[in-house]
C-alpha cells in the first residue's frame, strides 16, 4: 500500500540552499571529481545516432581523457538499435551498456511492445535498461497500471538492472515525484531516474532530494538499496559536486559508488576532466584540449 507523502516545497528549497552553500575543495574535490567520472552514464539518444557515433562515444567512455588519469565511465546509454555496436566496442571492459527501452521517450505504446523491446535490448547484450513510466496513466491516477507495467518490464529485464525514468518535468509537483518514486521502488526498480533529457526541466536538486528521501525511507524500512540517477541538465563539475554532497547527506557514504549512483549526461565528463586538470596543474587547460565526444 503506497501512501501519499506530503512535501513542502519551501523547506526543500531551504535544504538545497544549504547543500549548494557547502564548500568542496582540496582532497575531497579531487576524489569527488574522479568519482563523478566513474558514475557517469555517457549518453547519446538522438534520432541521428549512427554506429560511428556510438563507437566513438564508447572510446570516450573507456578513456575519457588522454591527458590525465581518469577512470572509465560507468556505462554508455544508447537506443536499443545501437546496443550491439556498443556491446562490441566495450567487450572486456568495466563499462556497462545501458539501453533505453519501452517506447522511449514518450512511452506511449503497448505493454507488449515495451516488453518485446526490453527483451531484445537485453538479448543484444544490454546490462542495464532505462525505461520510462506511463506519465499519462500516472497523472490520470491509474497507479496500479503504472506499477504493474514497471513490474512487467522488470520481469522482462531478467538479470539486467532496471532504471525507471519518472520524467519528473512532466509530473508537476514534488508530491507526484515522491509518489512515482515510491511506486517504482515498490515495483522492483533497481534505480530511479529523473528524466529522459527530452523534457525541461530535467534533473534538479530539489527533485533529486525528494527521490533520495524515498530511497532512504525504503532502505530504512526494508534494508534494500535502490540506486539514483539524475539525468539531463547536469553539465558542470560544480553541479555534480552539489549532487554528490546531497547524496552523502541524505543517503550516506554507502551510495557513493557507481553501483548506486549515476549521472545521466553527455557533456559533464568534459567539464570534470577540465577541472581535474585544474586540480593537478593549478591552471585551466585550453578547452580545445578536451575531446568533445
Amino acid at each position, binding site marked *: 500500500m503506497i501512501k501519499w507523502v506530503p512535501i*513542502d516545497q519551501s*523547506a526543500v528549497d531551504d535544504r538545497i540552499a544549504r547543500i549548494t552553500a557547502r564548500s*568542496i575543495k582540496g582532497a*575531497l574535490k579531487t576524489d*569527488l571529481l574522479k568519482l563523478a567520472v566513474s558514475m557517469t552514464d555517457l549518453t547519446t539518444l538522438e534520432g541521428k545516432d549512427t554506429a560511428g557515433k556510438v563507437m566513438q562515444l564508447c572510446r570516450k567512455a573507456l578513456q575519457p581523457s588522454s591527458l590525465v588519469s581518469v577512470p572509465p565511465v560507468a556505462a554508455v546509454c544508447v537506443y536499443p538499435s545501437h546496443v550491439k555496436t556498443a556491446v562490441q566496442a566495450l567487450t572486456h571492459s568495466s563499462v556497462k551498456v545501458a539501453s533505453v527501452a519501452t517506447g522511449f521517450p514518450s512511452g506511449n505504446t503497448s505493454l507488449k511492445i515495451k516488453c518485446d523491446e526490453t527483451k531484445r535490448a537485453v538479448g543484444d547484450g544490454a546490462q542495464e535498461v532505462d525505461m520510462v513510466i506511463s506519465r499519462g496513466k500516472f497523472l490520470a491516477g491509474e497507479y496500479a497500471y503504472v506499477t504493474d507495467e514497471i513490474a512487467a518490464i522488470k520481469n522482462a529485464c531478467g538479470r539486467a538492472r532496471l532504471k525507471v525514468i519518472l520524467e519528473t518535468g512532466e509530473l508537476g509537483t514534488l508530491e507526484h515525484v515522491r509518489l512515482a518514486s515510491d511506486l517504482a521502488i515498490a515495483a522492483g526498480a533497481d534505480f530511479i531516474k529523473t528524466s529522459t533529457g527530452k523534457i525541461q526541466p530535467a534533473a534538479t536538486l530539489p527533485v533529486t532530494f525528494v527521490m533520495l528521501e524515498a530511497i532512504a525511507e525504503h532502505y530504512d524500512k526494508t534494508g534494500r538499496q535502490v540506486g539514483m540517477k539524475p539525468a539531463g541538465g547536469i553539465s558542470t563539475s560544480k553541479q555534480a559536486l552539489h549532487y554528490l554532497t546531497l547524496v*552523502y547527506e541524505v543517503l550516506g557514504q554507502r551510495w557513493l559508488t557507481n553501483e548506486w549512483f549515476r549521472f545521466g549526461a553527455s557533456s559533464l565528463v568534459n567539464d570534470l576532466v577540465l577541472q581535474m586538470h585544474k586540480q593537478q596543474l593549478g591552471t585551466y587547460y585550453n578547452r580545445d584540449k578536451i575531446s568533445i565526444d
Partner: protein
Amino acid sequence: MDFKFAPAPESADIADIKATYGLFIDGKFVKATGGKTFTTYNPANSKHLAKIADASAADTVKALKAAQSAGQGVWKKMSGAERGKYLFRIARMIQERARELAVAESLDGGKPIRESRDFDVPMAAAHFFYYAGWADKLEYAFPGANPAPLGVVAQIVPWNFPLLMAAWKIAPALACGNTVVLKPAEQTSLTALKLAEIIQDCDLPPGVVNVVTGGPEVGKSLVNSDIPAKIAFTGSTEVGKYIQKQVAGTDKHLTLELGGKAAHIVLEDAALNQAVEGVVNGIFFNQGHVCCAGSRLLLQESIADGFIEKLKKRMRTLVVGDPLDKNTDIGAINNKEQFKRIQHFINSGKEEGLTVFQCPTKLPDNGYFIAPTLLLNAAQSSRVVQEEIFGPVLSIQTFRTVDEAIEKANNVSYGLSAGVWSEKGSRIFNITRQLNAGVVWANTYNKFDPASPFGGYKESGFGREGGVHGLHAYLKINI
C-alpha cells in the same frame, strides 16, 4: 573514499579589526572619561580581539546630550525625504562592507559565517532600506494623526544578533526623526562600532547616532537618565523587568523584546521530512541563541518515534566547528557564562530523568562549543520546558490531540513565537489563532522580513519592531 570537508575558512583579516575602539559620541570616536577599557574575545578560541572603551556615567550623559542637541538642532527639522537619503546611504554602505561585517560578526560572536554572511548582514541592510522608504511617508502610515518624533531614544541590544539588532533599532528610530544612543552588549560591540564608522562615513549629522560601549552600568545610566524619551530594549526578561520598574512613573516610552520558549508543533498530517528541516532551522540557527528559537518540540504521538529518528539522522549531518569555516552549520557558544548556563540546563534535564541525545561529533578543543542536543521524554513540568535555555538544546514532548497541543504551547510564561506544521490549511488557521505568541510561522520557521512586525506577549515583552508597527513605537501619534 572518505567524505570529509576540507577546511574552507574565511580569512580573519577581512574583518579589519582595530586594536582599540572608542565611544562614538557627537560624530567622533573618543576615549572613555577616565580611560577605562574592556577586552572583547573570540568565543571560538578565547583569543583577544580588541580593547573597547568602557563608558563612564559622564560619557553616557555626554552621548545623551549630543543626541538631544542634534535632535533639536538638525534632525527633527530635516525633511523626511532628506532623512531617508541618509538611511539609504547607510544601507548601501552596509552592503559595500558586507564581507568585512560578516567576518567581524562571526569572529566576535561565534556564529557561523554562513549565517552572518547570508542572514545577519543582508537583513541589517534590508532594514535600513525598508525604513529609508518610510521616512517621508509617515503621514501616510498614520493619516491625520500628526506623527512626530519622540526625541532621544536610548536603545540597548543583546549579543545574539549584534549588528542586526542595532539595525532593527536605529533604522526606524531615525526614519521617524528621533536621535539615538545605542548600547551594544559588552560581549559583542565590534559590529555596532563598525556601524558607527559607517554612520560617520555617511556624514550623518554629529550626535544623531551615538554608541556607548560597556557593561550593565552603562545600560543603567541610560535607563535612569532624564533625557531619553524612550527606552527600547532587547534582551533577557530579568533585565526587562528591571527596566520596566525603573521607567514606571516617568513619562518615558518603553518597548521590550525579551525571552521566549517557543512551541514548535508537528501534526501527524505534516510534510514530515520538511518539518525536520524546519525544526533543525528553528532550534540550531545561531547555536540556539535566538529569542524566538523553536526550543520546545511538540510531536503528535502517532508520528513521534519516526520523527525523532529522522531528526537524529539529520542532526548527524550538521557540521559543528570553526565559525569562519564556510561549511560550519553550528558555531561557538557566544560567551563563557552562556556556555555554563546551557550545560547547567542539560544536566538539569538529566537529573530530572530526561534522555539526552547529542550528536557524536568531535568538538574543537578550544573555545565554547556544545553539540546539538535533544532532551527526550520531556513533560510540561520539566524545568527545561519552562525556562529559556538560549542554546542548541531542544526539548521534545508528545501530544494526542490538537487541543492538547495548543494548551501545552501556551502553558509557559513566554509568548514570543511558535511554529505549526500541517498540510491542512483550515487546521493551521484554527491552531495559529489560538496560540498566544507574537509571531507564528506555519510550515516554516525563523523567516524574517523588514516589512513584518516582530514582538511578544506575556513575559516576552511588548511593542513591535518591523513593518508599519515598528514606526508606531518611535512616534507621538495624536488620534
